[in-house]
């Protein structure tokens, strides 16, 4: 759903590095090189990044849509 705060295996803090990782990989950089430059050395922590899918953004879209409808409804009844 959202990036875990720590590596499942070793407990290293990884949550704060995800956004930079995702941005740089999207820009076209090689994922391995980005991990190296972020100082993620062990393969347990590296797989946390490589295998992660941030689904929460997809889920939030439904809530945004629901909120829009709610607002529209309120506006409709006010008129």
């Amino acid at each position: 759903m959202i990036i875990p705060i720590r590596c499942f295996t070793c407990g290293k803090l990884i949550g704060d590095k995800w956004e930079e990782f995702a941005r740089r990989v999207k820009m076209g950089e090689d994922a391995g090189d980005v991990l190296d430059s972020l100082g993620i050395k062990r393969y347990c922590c590296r797989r946390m990044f490589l295998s992660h899918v941030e689904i929460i953004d997809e889920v939030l879209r439904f809530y945004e849509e629901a909120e829009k409808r709610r607002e529209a409804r309120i506006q409709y009844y006010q008129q």
Partner: protein
Amino acid sequence: MLERDEKNLRLLIRGADAPFINALRRNVIAEVPCMAIDDVVIIENSSVFHDEIIAHRLGLIPLKTDLDGYNLPEECSCKSEFGCNLCRVILTLDREAKEGAITVYSGDLTSENPNIVPVSDKIPIVKLAKGQKLRLEAYARLGKGKNHAKWQPVSLCSYKYLPRININGESCDACEKCVEICPRKVLAKREGKIEVRNLLACTLCRDCVDVCPKQPPAIEVDWEKNAFIFSVESTGVLPPERIVMEAVKILNKDLEELAKQIEV
């Protein structure tokens, strides 16, 4: 000391045996206390996550710890379930997504003690869609790694024997097979001879011994009995050397206790 930076520490320890180093390692992992959020009171949560998930995520956030200023809850004089100023820190969080989606970061937590704050301000806790709210109060306490991994001050604490590599200068013809196969690039060829360039990186895999065409092999990989490379990687809650010092103190205390028990 071989190398140290803000979070990492690598020590070369001589004159100790494996049981002692292992005791030290286990003390670092399980006995050195550090701060983590333990109880969370959720006042309002309309985010996509359940209260428990948010509480769990909050718990895992490493907090900068002040070991001298705070007591372990079970050793504190207050004896209270909720703790007092000497054994807990209150952190509060209050975010609402008014216009569009936002991310709630660990930096949004406001602590009552400016020294007990998350190690990083950039840890995402949850994302809120427009109109969602998150309000909570969290209680951080000292705890030990043996009770929960969130109280572990280190992400890595390990030791290995100090390697010893002997190259027989007479039978070695510098065919470079061992240089090629070494996964850690420990060996190098210089002036027609194989040399050990980076001894500490050696993992004692002995690939170089297996690949040597000479019989018996011209290279020998061995380790020193009483020398260790001890590495600690802190999560940022405490400086690594402080963690090791605390572990030594705790080990001393335990041993004194044991000596006392035996006497009686």
